[in-house]
């Protein structure tokens, strides 16, 4: 989550938009992005399998369109794959990355998931 939270931050910066990174760790926080709540609801339903995927899919399609739904499903699928590659191989972020983003890691509570160490 660290790598792509960084990319989220940088992408917002270069497109001159404001994003609240706390939305990554707290679904009640408004990211500030167009359709952000629908994207988070879709992601949560798709990843947790706890129900509500059909409703979340319809909401996302209505708010952002069919192409956005396909893109969102593709991103979820990619990271369902990559997260397993990382977990199963013991891949970790380098020490330098941890130092550079220590404040971000602490602020969003990511360090509690660092089970590879």
């Amino acid at each position, binding site marked *: 989550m660290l790598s792509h939270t960084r990319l989220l931050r940088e992408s917002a910066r270069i497109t001159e938009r404001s994003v609240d990174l706390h939305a990554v760790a707290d679904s009640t926080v408004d990211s500030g992005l167009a359709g952000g709540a629908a994207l988070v609801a879709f992601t949560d339903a798709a990843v947790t399998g706890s129900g509500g995927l059909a409703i979340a899919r319809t909401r996302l399609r209505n708010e952002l369109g069919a192409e956005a*739904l396909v893109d969102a499903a593709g991103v979820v699928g990619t*990271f369902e794959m990559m997260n397993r590659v990382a977990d199963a191989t013991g891949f970790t972020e380098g020490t330098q990355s941890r130092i550079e983003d220590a404040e971000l890691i602490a602020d969003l509570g990511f360090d509690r998931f660092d089970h590879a160490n």
Partner: protein
Amino acid sequence: MSRSLDATDLPIPFAVSTGIIEQWTRLAKPGTWWTAAATIAIAHQARRASDGEAPEARGDLPEVVAEAAQVVPASPTTIRRAWVEELVASALSYEQYVELVGTVSVVVGIDSFHRGIGAALEPLPNPTKGEPSGEAPPKPLQLRDAWVPMPDRAWIMRALALVPAQTGAIEDVQSALYVTGPEFPVLDLKRGLDRTQMELVAARTSFLNECFY
């Protein structure tokens, strides 16, 4: 178009449908360290795990391999170095483990895409006959901080470098479903979603999976 994606009314990009077909075609062929029959059996067990079902005794995989094919998709955050070391000491080579991880992860990712868009899962292909290639990486790899041999200071796309075909597979899936290599540094990319929206989904997915990376 794949059989499953054929039935949807959604605008599936050509690169997505062909990317998925290519992966299924690859799975049906002998791998680097597993036969095609074993690869499909591993994929089958991974699907059962994703559906919350126990390993199925089919006689085509040792029990410990069937269990490993379930742990990676269903409870990856429980995996520790000691578990991998025990698996490698008792049942598999590192190369076979890395190929299993790649196969399972690709199937999980593609199945997740189908579920996300509301499509039926693509039926697993029938395996073809033939022997694994045994292709080694271009340079010998050492066991370092990670749990499998990988290049020094590797990035995530090289985590499966011990089996080059698996690196190619995850790169191809990422290109089809997320962004291509050349698109990766383009942070103002705009498609159905813009890149910022894509990264919100990527980061949230990893958070829910408790994946620090």
